[in-house]
């Protein structure tokens, strides 16, 4: 490590945190500046959560903290101490895709797939809060996620299928 670049920095700023990810508890020594998304990707090897921007705009890094969607690029790993994180890897159960994942697959709701984990997690959170959303509620519920391939048309269909509304 390089020398700390300001006076008075503690010798070792590392903090011990305990984070539950997809049901498994992890005790980690984190540099406070580590973003949650890199903790997930690089420390825990959960590379399904992607980084698409550096301005909290694209939502590719969306995960659930205590069941609610958040952009994991805008959360410090140390802020997640004691909390429960769900990533895309934690959705499937016993080898079966989560209904939202299944719906994205069925409706051709993805093309390159890079934004997809973020969209799936945002959708899980949206449907938890609004179980039978209108098309407008779906579109606004996903306003924090950007996709460049699908034009969102089939993503909206996927959410409708997962919610059991519309066609």
């Amino acid at each position, binding site marked *: 490590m390089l020398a700390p670049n300001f006076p008075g920095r503690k010798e070792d700023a590392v903090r011990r945190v305990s984070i539950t990810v997809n049901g498994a508890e992890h005790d980690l020594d984190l540099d406070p500046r580590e973003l949650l998304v890199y903790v997930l990707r690089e420390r825990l090897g959960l590379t399904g959560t992607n980084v*698409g921007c*550096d301005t909290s705009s694209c939502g590719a890094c969306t995960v659930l903290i205590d069941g609610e969607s958040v952009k994991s690029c805008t959360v410090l790993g140390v802020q997640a101490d004691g909390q429960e994180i769900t990533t895309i890897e934690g959705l499937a159960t016993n080898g079966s895709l989560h209904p939202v994942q299944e719906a994205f697959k069925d409706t051709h709701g993805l093309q390159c797939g890079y934004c997809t984990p973020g969209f799936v997690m945002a959708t899980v959170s949206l449907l938890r809060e609004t179980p039978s959303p209108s*098309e407008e509620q779906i579109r606004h519920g996903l306003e924090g996620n950007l*996709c460049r391939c*699908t034009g969102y048309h*089939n993503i909206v269909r996927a959410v409708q299928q997962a919610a059991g509304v519309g066609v």
Partner: protein
Amino acid sequence: MIAETRAEARDAAELVQVEYEPLPAVVDPERALEDGAPIVHDDFGTNSCYTWKLSAGDVDEEFGNASVVVKERYRQQRLIPNAMEPRGVIVQPFPATGELTMWSATQIPHIARVTLSMVTGVPEAKLRVVAPDVGGGFGSKLNVYAEEALALVLARKLGRPIKWIETRTEGYQATIHGRDQIQEIELAATSEGKIRAVRAKLTVAMGAYLQLVTPGVPLLGAWLYSGAYDVVAYDFECTGVFTTTTPTDAYRGAGRPEATYAIERAIDALARKVGKDPVEIRRLNFLREFPKTIASGLTVDSGDYDAHLDAALELLDYDAVRKDQAERRERRDTKEVGIGFSTYLEMCGLAPSRILGAIRYGAGGWDAATIRFLPTGTVQVLIGTSPHGQSHETTFAQIVADQLGVGYDEIEVLHGDTAVTPLGMDTYGSRSLTVGGIAVYKAAERIVEKARKIAAHQLEVGEDELAYDGGRFTANGGALTTKEIALQAWTAHNLPDGMEPGLEASYVFDPENFSWPAGTHIAVVEIDTETGNVDLIRYVAVDDVGKVINPDVVAGQIHGGVTQGVAQALWEEAVYDDDGNLITGSMVNYLVPSAAEVPSFELGSTETPSPTNPLGVKGVGETGTIASTAAVMNAVVDALSARGVTDIDMPATPERVWRAVKEVAS
């Protein structure tokens, strides 16, 4: 700066003090051609990079005799492609053998290997390039980038793996941009609005340094400035100009959205001038007999433009929307509705190698496939195209499953690795199915051909006595499946005399022509004339992309392409200040639309198979983008035309719309 962790590299880079000497900036291509403009490359003495011309027929005479001349000037603003996955490269050196493997988020592993070998001196035979699952490209990854060469050279020098991942804001400056051209287009027409001649002149920003296809991109539109319309004389001129900006290069549609925009906007201007409905003027001018050699010299394969126009009008219920528009005007509603058409014609399926040679591209336009029938009955399909979201695994497996009569799930499509699929020209220009897919089809034909010989031999009948259906050869009550034959070909116990064992075939396909998708797109916008806000409320698209292999994949390409084109019309613009700083430097102020900004799309289709390839396919990767920008801007102008507005620069921001409305009102 090389370090062991991301954070260390970032901290260390901060310790480097760079002293910059500011040089004069010139960001606008027309300004760059003026006397006294700062010169980007002193040794050239001018910012003019090239001028390229194409002329056919007596254009001057047609303009001299024309009853009506329309002269328009449009600006194609600069765009940032925004593939969702930023670029990234990892190089693993194998010092013992001198081999290097590069994983790169690229559209073009094959072209990258050739180019990087030439640039770095790593022998091509020692270099393996892998394009793993790549998160979108849209042309931005159709380039060989400095970071790839750097990573390669550093890994070789250090004998350690090197990884570089682009950040988004870095990508906005360092990954290629698209468009950025000034278009002047003139139409010579009869008093009824029949177009006789087209003249188009482009001034295009190249950026500071030419990338892989920079100067060629606007020329891909060179033949298309007469659109889907029958004209007798044609004149095209393009000047590429150096500017102190990020280089431009291929962005979805590359040259053809620009051409379509110019002709589709201009034909609406002509319609207004001669007092015709936009539908009527298009019908008056459509190409109607195919194959048809158009004024610019290329031959359009097939089409039926009235068919998709009719279908689109019906989907829209044109009369009802026009009625709504009239009623709003009647009651002086502050919210106006506009209807915009784009009856586009596209040339894609890049490309006949000889034509690429004629416009001095550095490579051919062919593609390759190998099909390997394995002894246990599963099939490997090795393709030279390199998908990054286009579903080649799905579509190409369908082609092979149909021909070989094996289950879709028994086929493995392999791509994007020069060690596995050494021959290929990669993915861009809506070429994968129309070129690579044909190579797959032809290779499968060769498999069936060889299997037929083995079947005839083992069933002891003549080849022409065999019926073949669904993977099964039958004759005189005997039958053999392709899977059984695959095992026989592997054991080689009982093959015809002199036959090579194994059931594997390759094909390299070089297309004889481009393919020519066409269609009608109709946009309906609602404009709040007080705020200037434009809301896209409906979008109808009826496309003729020839034979469709997978309707879901085709629809997905259209949805995404349309959205990118709509985004150019309404939201996206890369803006530089006069000092050459990119102001729209992040996703916060470069406005990629979200789901909340666009509607669901209403799609239809018509089909005229291409006669120039055995599948009859035409390509669909770019149609949506090519068609939609013009449709939306025609709708914006249509909404305000009764007030006297004839043009608004893209993107049609609320402020631009407000100013346009204000200007005509005063």
